[in-house]
């Protein structure tokens, strides 16, 4: 693979600057528009090509819209395709001009050639202009009944596109039930697959508001549908198979014979050439057998070979994704892969992200029988040209040592590393030897002999230097010249830039002092003096502490600094088993690659129906900073998993509650109060609350989201909201104050805060209102979590009164 050249952000010389070329094109297109001369199609094609290439480079050619549409009356299919592409790209920003294209697209929908019918229908649905949906229903209806499967296939996806533009139009035309019929009866499997994916999306989105839709969604994973799809699975394209398999994982078989039937049927999918199919099948197998422990173990054996093949025969990118999944499996069943450790040996040419995962796999599969060989192999990598990998492999050796297999041989290897005279190898090895000694103090004798030979001048990295100093202090009675080395280090106090090293140095000198007082006394004095004068707060404090405790009572000081030590038996694991289980549930998803459950990294808005993703999708990176913050916050909150789940349920409760409101409003009952929810405890708000913006910002970042919901605004409210100020005054009369607001019609964004009466407990609210859809996205954060529900009700009622006189 050719390495990419240095990046040049400059534009390529051939790239035109825009304006004059575009108007030139406009003129030429206009000349050609009416012409019927022979060969005109060829010149049109050249022009269209130019237009599209400008569009691709990023030049705005939307001003040519009219001319392009005029030229589109042609029978040449390539011209048509280019025109469709152009129209699809600019229709959304030019809704008025898009109307011009409807005519010719509709005509093309009745063309003789099924290909043109299909393409026209696809483009028609890709215009995504809300006020043109009325023109879509007819062609879609006939498209779904078309005799050609290509057209039907396009039409099915078209229905889904329509649903995203205008859900009500789609439901009113009864398209979902047509799709259901097609799904169960069409002869073409691609049509079936498209129906399935469309229905999944539509019904999941509808399920929150309609009982029937949620029943239909359940019906998708009924025995009838699942068996129907499974029986045809070999006819599906590989991608459609992935979709079906994903659905099957959600199916709960009623008896165990079903499980075996399904697995028998799907067994050959494990041999499929497409890795995505293999992985989806693996997921089905694992999920089906979760409750049957012994079969589950057999499944591990069965899926092993196909997965290992994927690792070694695919592209590096595929290997990476599969290895991430293997890593997950190996955590649950290390013994399964322990005899296949050679698969995880690194090849010289592999990219480092693959090597890194392979190293993790090697550490994970190491056991009594293979440790020797694995460690031998890892030691080869220590001499690797790729320095980060060399470091990782030394760390891997250390991790294996801490797993307690064959420690004897490993310690020898580590000590050899120390003698390799390469600074980064020495550095990594020192850190490991330190950890090892904390776990296996019995090896101190051998290690100290080697460590004593290392000149502290050759160790530069702070972590390694700290480790060396720690050992000097801890084992000063065994190392002849420990006090003198420490003394020389203290003398160079000012040249030591890392606070961590200085902290370790202070402690080490103390320890050494209690073991060999006469030799260390002067060094201790110097270290304490330097420490107290240190500008770093921690170093200063620790030095002062040592100084005072020494003055107070030397034997107490000794007990503090040199207590009898116990060997560490288990180092704290970085990831809880609960998180690992969650990731396992999300097998075959991105969360496995990030090694985090998806709620920790995907934004909440995007997990449900893609309601608001449109606006967010349009954000450019520069403005997206608050997104980042929110994902970080989710991560912080994860320390308390239980809390987060509870919160999620609460959110869901909020949704359904809101949904029932929506229906009530639709029926025109106009019930102002909360219908069947027990009335919340009265919450009084402080009318004169105050909060400065920076505190708000800080609290917003710290607090978890207590509630997030979507509210519907009354038409009066939408009408009243011409500028943000109107809402501000209204909310203030309800003791909810605004701290920041912005946006232009139809999108407004507000940050509100409120304070509990006679208490300084704050509520923070982010409210995004879209006046065109009449919806408000509300996120509430509360310092006092227990009253967040009550506050939410208050906020809701305040908002609902907006616009009413």
């Amino acid at each position, binding site marked *: 693979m050719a390495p990419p050249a240095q990046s040049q952000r400059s534009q390529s010389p051939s790239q035109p600057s825009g304006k004059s070329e575009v108007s030139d094109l406009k003129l030429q297109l206009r000349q050609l528009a009416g012409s019927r001369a022979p060969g005109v199609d060829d010149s049109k094609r050249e022009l269209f090509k130019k237009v599209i290439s400008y569009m691709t480079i990023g030049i705005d050619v939307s001003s040519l819209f009219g001319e392009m549409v005029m030229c589109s009356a042609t029978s040449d299919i390539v011209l048509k395709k280019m025109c469709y592409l152009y129209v699809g790209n600019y229709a959304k920003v030019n809704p008025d001009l898009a109307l011009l294209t409807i005519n010719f697209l509709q005509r093309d929908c009745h063309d003789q050639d099924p290909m043109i019918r299909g393409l026209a229908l696809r483009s028609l649905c890709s215009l995504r202009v809300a006020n043109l949906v009325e023109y879509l229903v007819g062609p879609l209806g006939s498209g779904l009944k078309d005799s050609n499967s290509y057209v039907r296939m396009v039409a099915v996806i078209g229905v889904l596109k329509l649903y995203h533009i205008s859900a009500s139009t789609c439901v009113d035309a009864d398209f979902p039930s047509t799709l259901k019929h097609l799904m169960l009866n069409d002869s073409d499997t691609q049509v079936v697959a498209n129906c399935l994916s469309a229905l999944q999306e539509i019904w999941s989105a509808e399920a929150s508001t309609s009982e029937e839709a949620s029943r239909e969604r359940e019906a998708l994973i009924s025995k009838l549908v699942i068996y129907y799809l499974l029986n045809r699975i070999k006819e599906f394209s590989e991608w459609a198979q992935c979709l079906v398999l994903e659905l099957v994982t959600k199916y709960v078989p009623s008896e165990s014979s079903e499980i075996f039937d399904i697995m028998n049927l799907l067994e050959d999918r494990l041999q499929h050439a497409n890795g995505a199919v293999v992985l989806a099948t693996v997921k089905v197998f694992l999920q089906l057998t979760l409750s049957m422990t012994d079969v589950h173990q057999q499944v591990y054996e069965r899926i092993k070979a196909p997965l290992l093949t994927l690792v070694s025969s695919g592209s590096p990118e595929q290997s990476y994704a599969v290895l991430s999944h293997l890593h997950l499996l190996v955590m649950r069943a290390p013994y399964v892969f322990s005899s296949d450790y050679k698969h995880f040996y690194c090849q010289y040419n592999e*990219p480092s992200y693959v090597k890194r995962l392979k190293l993790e796999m090697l550490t994970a599969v190491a056991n009594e029988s293979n440790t020797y060989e694995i460690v031998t192999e890892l030691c080869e990598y220590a001499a690797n040209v790729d320095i980060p990998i060399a470091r990782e492999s030394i760390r891997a050796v250390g991790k294996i040592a801490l797993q307690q297999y064959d420690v004897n041989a490993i310690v020898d290897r580590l000590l050899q590393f120390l003698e390799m005279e390469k600074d980064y190898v020495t550095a990594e090895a020192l850190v490991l030897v330190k950890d090892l000694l904390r776990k296996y103090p019995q090896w101190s004798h051998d290690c100290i002999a080697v460590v004593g030979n290392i000149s502290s001048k050759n160790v530069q990295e702070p972590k390694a230097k700290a480790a060396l100093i720690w050992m000097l202090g801890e084992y000063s009675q065994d190392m002849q010249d420990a006090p003198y080395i420490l003394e020389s280090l203290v003398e160079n106090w000012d040249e030591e830039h890392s606070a961590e090293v200085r902290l370790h140095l202070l402690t080490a000198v103390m320890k050494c002092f209690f073991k060999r007082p006469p030799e260390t006394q002067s060094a201790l004095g110097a270290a304490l003096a330097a420490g107290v004068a240190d500008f770093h707060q921690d170093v200063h404090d620790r030095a002062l502490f040592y100084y005072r405790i020494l003055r107070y009572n030397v034997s107490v000081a000794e007990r503090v600094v040199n207590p009898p030590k116990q060997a560490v038996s288990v180092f704290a694991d970085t990831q809880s088993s609960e998180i690992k289980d969650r990731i396992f549930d999300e097998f075959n998803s*991105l969360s496995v690659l990030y090694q985090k459950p998806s709620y920790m990294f*995907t934004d909440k808005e995007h997990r449900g129906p893609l309601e608001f993703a449109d606006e967010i999708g349009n954000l450019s990176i520069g403005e997206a900073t608050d997104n980042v913050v929110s994902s970080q916050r989710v991560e912080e909150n994860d320390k308390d998993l239980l809390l987060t789940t509870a919160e999620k349920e609460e959110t869901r409760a909020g949704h359904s509650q809101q949904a029932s409101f929506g229906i009530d409003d639709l029926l025109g009952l106009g019930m102002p109060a909360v219908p069947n929810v027990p009335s919340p405890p009265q919450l009084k708000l402080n009318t004169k609350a105050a909060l400065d913006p920076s505190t708000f910002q800080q609290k917003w970042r710290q607090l978890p989201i207590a509630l997030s919901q979507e509210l519907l605004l009354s038409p009066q409210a939408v009408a009243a909201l011409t500028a943000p100020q109107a809402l501000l005054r209204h909310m203030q009369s309800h003791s909810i104050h605004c701290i920041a607001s912005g946006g232009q019609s139809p999108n407004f964004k507000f940050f509100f805060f409120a304070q509990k009466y006679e208490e300084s407990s704050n509520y923070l609210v982010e409210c995004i209102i879209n006046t065109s859809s009449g919806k408000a996205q509300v996120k509430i954060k509360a310092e006092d979590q227990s009253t967040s529900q009550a506050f939410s009700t208050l906020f809701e009622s305040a908002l609902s009164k907006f616009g009413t006189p």
Partner: protein
Amino acid sequence: MLQCIFLLSDSGEVMLEKQLTGHRVDRSICDWFWDHVISQGDSFKSQPVIASPTHYLFQVVREGITFLACTQVEMPPLMGIEFLCRVSDVLSDYLGGLNEDVIKDNFVIVYELLDEMIDNGFPLTTEPNILREMIAPPNIVSKVLSVVTGNSSNVSDTLPGATGSCIPWRAADPKYANNEVYVDLVEEMDAVINRDGALVKCEVYGEVRVNSHLSGLPDLTLSFANPSILDDVRFHPCVRFRPWESHQILSFVPPDGEFKLMSYRVKKLKSTPIYVKPQLSSDAGKCRVNVLVGIRNDHGKTIDSITLQFQLPPCILSADLTSNTGTVNILGNKTCSWSIGRIPKDKTPSLSGTLVLESELERLHVFPTFRVGFKIMGVALSGLQIDKLDLKTAPSRLYKGFRALTRAGEFEVRS
């Protein structure tokens, strides 16, 4: 569900943008991505799946072209990666190679292909046979044809019959005057050899490639003399699973043209066809290198295009290397490549010379890994043998051909 696909050139320029859903992805994501790549130093080093502040990005780099796909929702990762790999395969198949110019020249075809391969973020068909019927590739024949007939459309008039047939990989009813089918065994040997000459790992990855030009709906069976040596196998969708399960017979209706019927792996092989013995000894700021290459056990077939490549350690100032056979080149990035070709009968090829280390270094601590290349025609080193190929209802004239080839895959010798 993918939301957008970008094709970036090796300088980070957006060559192509294909929005797939209503959730438009802003181009600024490419700038973010490119900055990210630069901060990693090399696009090859950064991971295939990255989380940007707004989207999750899949990237696959082929021939300097970055295929970038964006999504905001959870999805099977391999689906994204596999799809991008297929896109790059299909494009390079269509355009006869991949590079910046060829994509810019043919971007209309690329758009057309993407249009058929994915709709609303969900992959439809990536089967090259089917695509070929919907969009004709820009080859010389069609260029000539367009000049002659004046019809320059590159879209075939007919819709692919297979979209309606139950064998999605096969076009309906091709007709040939000469019925031919060729089966090739193509194997790659992956091996790691330690500095003491011990085989750490040695296995063969093999593919059975079939090129079929058969009329009608041919039903083929292919059997091996020794199928038991195959370790794990993967099949083209056309292979029926049951006959393989019970009798290790490949029974299939082939796609038209060339395709990969199956891939397999044969593990734990005991020997390699050639040996490489590197010796490095260093002291006093110099390192003497001596590498011998020879045939280990004779398969009776000539071993061709033997090459040896290794990366000189960064701490080396200069290198003076000569060989008694073939040519030695030291490239700009400190890669030394020695091309031997065939091994002569009368002498053993050897490479020798000295490396001068950086001034403060006494001895060499980083040892290079030698990557070996070779090619052997007419033999499958795994030992796999084809027994016979049968065609149900054989046409009157049928020509069957078999070939085998083994080359070095990741063949590494450590020193």
